[in-house]
Structures are given as C-alpha cells and as structure tokens.
C-alpha cells in the first residue's frame, strides 16, 4: 500500500494483514560538487522505481512510506531515525525495512532498529537504456526474493 488517502483507509481496515513497512532512506545534500548532486538525484529516481515495484508486488502486505530525508549520518541522525522507527513499531509493524543506496548506512547497520536493505545503485546512467533497465530489474527481483525470505524465516 502507498502513502495516499485510499490506501491508508484500506490499511487501517486491514492492519493485521499489513505487517511490513518499507522506508526509503534518501540523502539530500547541497554542500558538494554538482555532479554528486546529479547522481544523488539519479539514484533517488531509481530507488523510487524499486520501491514502486516492491509495493506493486506486495501491495496487500507492505506499506511503502514516503522518503526519509537526511543530510548526514551522525549520532543525532541515528537517534532521529530510531525514534521514527519506534513510531512504526507501535503501529505495529513486524518487519521494518529501510531501503537505501547510501553505503554510509551499511556501516551503521548494527545501530539501526530495522532491517537495512542496501542496494548498490548506479551513480550515473540512463534509465531509457536497456542495459540499465535490465540491471534495475535484476535488483528488483532480488529485493522481492529477499523480502519474501524474511517473511518465511
């Protein structure tokens, strides 16, 4: 389900079936080179596609949240995200997945209260191109399997 009115109504009625939340972690920083900003936006675009596809496949069990924006990953940020996650826990969600292309989270994985799905996303490319599309599709496929495995374990 998505973060929109109709899906929220459905979610609230079917809460016991929706035990999984997906939270995209998206870095947005301005104090860096232009080309890095371009790749940040590009990666975000692809992350959106991935989340969209995951939501479509598992609509009835997953709530895909809007992006969680941050600028740097420090102690303060860790506290903030864990507080946010705590709120999700109360909903309750049994499985909370963070999905991100930012490898800095990988180093902080142990400090997170949800499961980190880190996807190495291309820094540049062209989504209109077949190769890029195939690669993204592969990654989506793996993510689908991964989530299913968490459910079944």
């Amino acid at each position, binding site marked *: 389900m998505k973060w929109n009115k109709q899906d929220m109504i*459905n979610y609230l009625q*079917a809460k016991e*079936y*929706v035990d999984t939340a997906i939270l995209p972690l998206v870095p947005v920083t301005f104090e860096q080179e232009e080309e890095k900003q371009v790749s940040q936006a590009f990666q975000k675009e692809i992350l959106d596609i991935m989340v969209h596809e995951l939501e*479509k*496949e*598992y*609509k*009835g*069990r997953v709530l895909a949240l809007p992006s969680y924006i941050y600028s740097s990953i420090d102690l303060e940020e860790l506290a903030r995200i864990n507080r946010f996650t705590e709120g999700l826990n109360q909903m309750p969600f049994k499985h909370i997945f963070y999905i991100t292309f930012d490898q800095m989270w990988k180093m902080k994985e142990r400090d997170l209260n949800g499961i980190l799905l880190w996807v190495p996303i291309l820094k540049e490319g062209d989504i209109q191109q077949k190769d890029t599309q195939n690669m993204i599709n592969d990654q989506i496929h793996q993510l689908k399997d991964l989530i*299913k495995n968490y*459910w079944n374990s």
Partner: protein
Amino acid sequence: MSKDKKKQVSRRQFLNYTLTGVGGFMAAGMLSPMIRFAIDPVLKAQGEEEYVAVVEVDKITTEPQRFEFKVHQVDAWYESDVTKTAWVFKQEDGSILALSPICTHLGCVVNWSGNEDYPNQFYCPCHDGRYYKDGVNVPNTPPTAPLHVYDHKIQDGMLYLGKAKPREEA
C-alpha cells in the same frame, strides 16, 4: 509526436487566455476541450473498450504463462503507460483464459505454481491465498473472490486483452 505538440500549444494558449482576462479565460475554457476532442482519440472513444495486442495465439499453452503488456492510462493529473500482466492459458475446451494476477484479498501479485506444495494453483505470497487454475479462490484461504478475468479477443492469430473484470459467479 505531433499530437503532443498540439497539446503543448493548447496549454500555452490556455495560459495566454487566462492572462488576457476573464473573457479570454472563458474562450479558452470552451476551446480547449474542443481541441482535445479533435486530437485525442482515446478521450473520444470513451466507454469503448481498448484492446492491446499481447501474444501470438500459438504461443499459448495449457500451462499458464505470464505475459506483460502496456496500456495507456489517464488519471486526473497524470498520463502514463502502465505495465499490466496476465496469466494466460488454454483451457480444456480449447478456449483461452486470461487472468489478472492481482490477488482479490488485498492486491498482491499471485504466481502460478508459486508454492511448491500447490504446484497446480495460483499462490499469493502475502497471506498464503490460493486459487485453482481457473482462477476460483480456494476456500479457507484469505481471498473471497476469484481472480478477475481479462476481456479478450483474437484477431489474425494475435491475442488482444481488454479490461480485467470480476468474474460472474457460476
């Protein structure tokens, strides 16, 4: 392509009219739907069902296969091409059945033979919903209605699919 261009122009015109004043605004209000009707057959054919070519009929087997096709969708704010999927197979009497993969419980995507324990059923990974081959939901699993069925027609050896509709109960 030229269709797009015309539309852009009409949007710019619309803005111009708006800026010119109320009279202009009203003219634009009358004009722009007229332009849209003239150039946009999709809008004109409202109510009439759109069929999309999906696969050659001779590729369809008695085993359900998954096919994708694109439909053009117009929402309130967006126009987009949406990819749809169908599980298509030949039934015992030779007729073709094209099922929507959307679970009627809460909308996950079902897979043929998606669970090793039930190789001849559609399986929904979200809450273990199941459907028989003909799309009818297996009792005592979460779905309470059969998978929807796509309208279809065959032309020159091609299968065309229309809208997926709830199945009328037998």
